[in-house]
């Protein structure tokens, strides 16, 4: 919990809801802020990591290349068309981590993709600092964001520009049904950011109508409840955890 307790709506005022990407437009990031980011899901939060990555895809058109290794597919399932907003999904299922890295590098040569997402389960020697550096440079050169979801892996030395940790949280109260889970909420921890400041947040992903036409995410503050199709609200996780606790227990009480 290294977030500042004073900075509550850290984000949204400046950079709209593509938050956490304050880094994106600065420094060495490529056109449109494309760069390499790593996500380390806690055990059981692999689907949340996928949802988070999809929520963070910007308004780029074009298909998504999703590379998975075999263990990730066996353990946590395969991606579906949900959450893709009508983008095409090219799914590549491989058996070795080294193949995944080659495929990611190959995919980053194509500027028509909206993103390259790779999922690797477990530690692999192929995911070395050098390999990640190559991918980061290539991603920035091509302007295609690359997300690497590393399941069941330690966060070793890495060249990724942003490194996130994600865990699931009890979801927000459902507006209509107190017994039902509402919008998903995650605990996000940006523990390394090259051009920005690390921090920890509680994110709430509001998914609007599927296949949203028009603006995919609304601008505006974190308190706003608008008609935006998709929105990722971030609240700083305060150091004493009061806000997080309140939010979490609220959800559980609603479950009762």
């Amino acid at each position, binding site marked *: 919990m290294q977030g500042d307790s004073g900075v509550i709506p850290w984000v949204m005022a400046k950079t709209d809801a593509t938050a956490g990407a304050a880094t994106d437009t600065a420094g060495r990031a490529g056109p449109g802020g494309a760069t390499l980011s790593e996500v380390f899901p806690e055990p059981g939060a692999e*689907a949340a990591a996928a949802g988070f990555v999809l929520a963070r895809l910007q308004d780029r058109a074009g298909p998504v290349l999703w590379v998975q290794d075999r263990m990730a597919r066996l353990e946590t399932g*395969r991606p579906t068309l*949900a959450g893709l907003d009508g983008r095409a999904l*090219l*799914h*590549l299922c491989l058996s070795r981590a080294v193949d995944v890295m080659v495929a990611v590098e190959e995919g980053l040569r194509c500027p028509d*993709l909206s993103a390259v997402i790779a999922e690797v389960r477990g530690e692999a020697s192929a995911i070395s600092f050098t390999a990640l550096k190559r991918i980061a440079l290539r991603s920035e050169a091509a302007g295609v964001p690359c997300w690497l979801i590393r399941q069941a892996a330690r966060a070793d030395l890495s060249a990724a520009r942003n490194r996130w940790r994600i865990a699931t949280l009890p979801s927000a109260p459902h507006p209509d049904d107190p017994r039902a*889970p509402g919008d998903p909420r995650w605990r996000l921890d940006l523990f390394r950011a090259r051009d920005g400041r690390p921090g920890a947040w509680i994110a709430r*992903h509001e998914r609007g109508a599927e296949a949203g036409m028009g603006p995919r995410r609304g601008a505006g503050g974190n308190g706003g409840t608008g008609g935006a199709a998709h929105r990722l609200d971030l609240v700083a996780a305060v150091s004493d955890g009061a806000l997080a606790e309140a939010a979490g227990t609220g959800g559980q009480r609603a479950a009762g």
Partner: protein
Amino acid sequence: MERWRKLQERAGNAPPDEVPLALAVEGTHGPIVHAANRAARLAGVTEGARVVDMRALCPALKVDYADTGGDRAALQRLAMWARRWCPWTAVDDSGGDPGLILDTTGADHLWGGEAAMLAEMEGRLALSGFSARLALAPTWGAAWALARFGPVRATCADTAPLPAAALRLGADTVLLLNRLGLRTIGHLADVPRLSLARRFARAAPADNPLIRLDQLTGHLAEPVSPPDAPPVFRADARLAEPIFDPTHHLPDLCAALCAQLADARQGARRLMLTVYRTDGEVSRIEAACALPSRDAAHLAFLFRDRLERIDSGFGFDLISLEAPITESLGARQVDLAGGTEAGLPLAHLTDRLATRFGRGALTQLQPAASHIPERAETRAAPMAAVPALTPVPAERPERLLDHPEEVRVLYAVPEGPPAQFQWRRRTHRVTRYQGPERIAPEWWQDRPGTRLRDYFKVEDEAGRRFWLYREGLHDDGRGADPRWFLHGIFA
């Protein structure tokens, strides 16, 4: 019929020979029999009769629909294949049912005489699974008549005793001739020409007995005009000395091939690189493109990492690059600003990934018209057109397991999902749930006895959101107590 049988054998469900079988096409009054196998013909099934009548005659008759377009395409390929015997081959559809016509003038002595050539043709066709009726005659008309109505492997036999239908006439004209008492070609030939010409003055040339008779006897020339063989796109590199590594020759070969393709306005879909080794062996590798392409750099790239798979032995001195499958690709203008064409880099990417990791590894998920979650998405080839479907309004998980996994219910409640369940040796306590969403089996393709599913979105105390379903109901009479499965994971 035999093509159908080969296709079924390839699919692994060919019926045994003794089952009467017929292929049908749509007729004016319902389907009519297009072809029948031997067992069906012995049972009395005749071609051209209605399928319902033949069913009455032979109740065990199995009927499938004939693929006439496919037959026609196969016949055209067969005509090209028959160029092995003589250069003038064409599909013969001058009469009723199509066949092949070969102008063997000056070719028969190469096969040891006319009879030996016919025997060789019949043997070759039998090897590829086709039975054939062959005849050899000085004219097209006579060969047509003898092949269909004459003795087996007739060679320049007498056509006079053949029926009038052997003149390639329409059914109405044959009927008329029969009513006039002209039952054979000999009868027709005896009739004075003037009266025949007067009687059939208004008939179309293909339906005029006099013209057909002249064609049969050779008074009227009827040359065979064979279609051009499809062009072969191939570039060769002949080397003075045997080498082991074709890498340096590949760009030149690709450029030469692309120049040929550009002249013909074609783009390659398949590529085959063949090396001819000095010890007489041949080794080849293949590549494929998702969209037709004649971009030399891209084609060369497709082979880049695979050249080491060529077994070069003691070296090779001839490299040939061939495009066996091409598609038409016109000259395209890149936009005025000189930017790259949209979609092209993506096609190149899918080619590179498919050649590197295999065609099955890369798929494109597409929505399909089904409510069963695992059928609502199909895997198509990349770059396929996406069907426009309205998505299911209900919420769907971000992750779907390939096979639903059974969970152990630790604490069941009468309604709703289990309050506690165990999945992959971990216990989850359900705090909140949403559902059920009932999805009934699709009766038109599911086995009878398939149970409906009640889907619940549940959340456990750690905030993990799962998609559980109960298979069946307690009293649906389709097996034991319903079981619970975990099918997907929400974000």
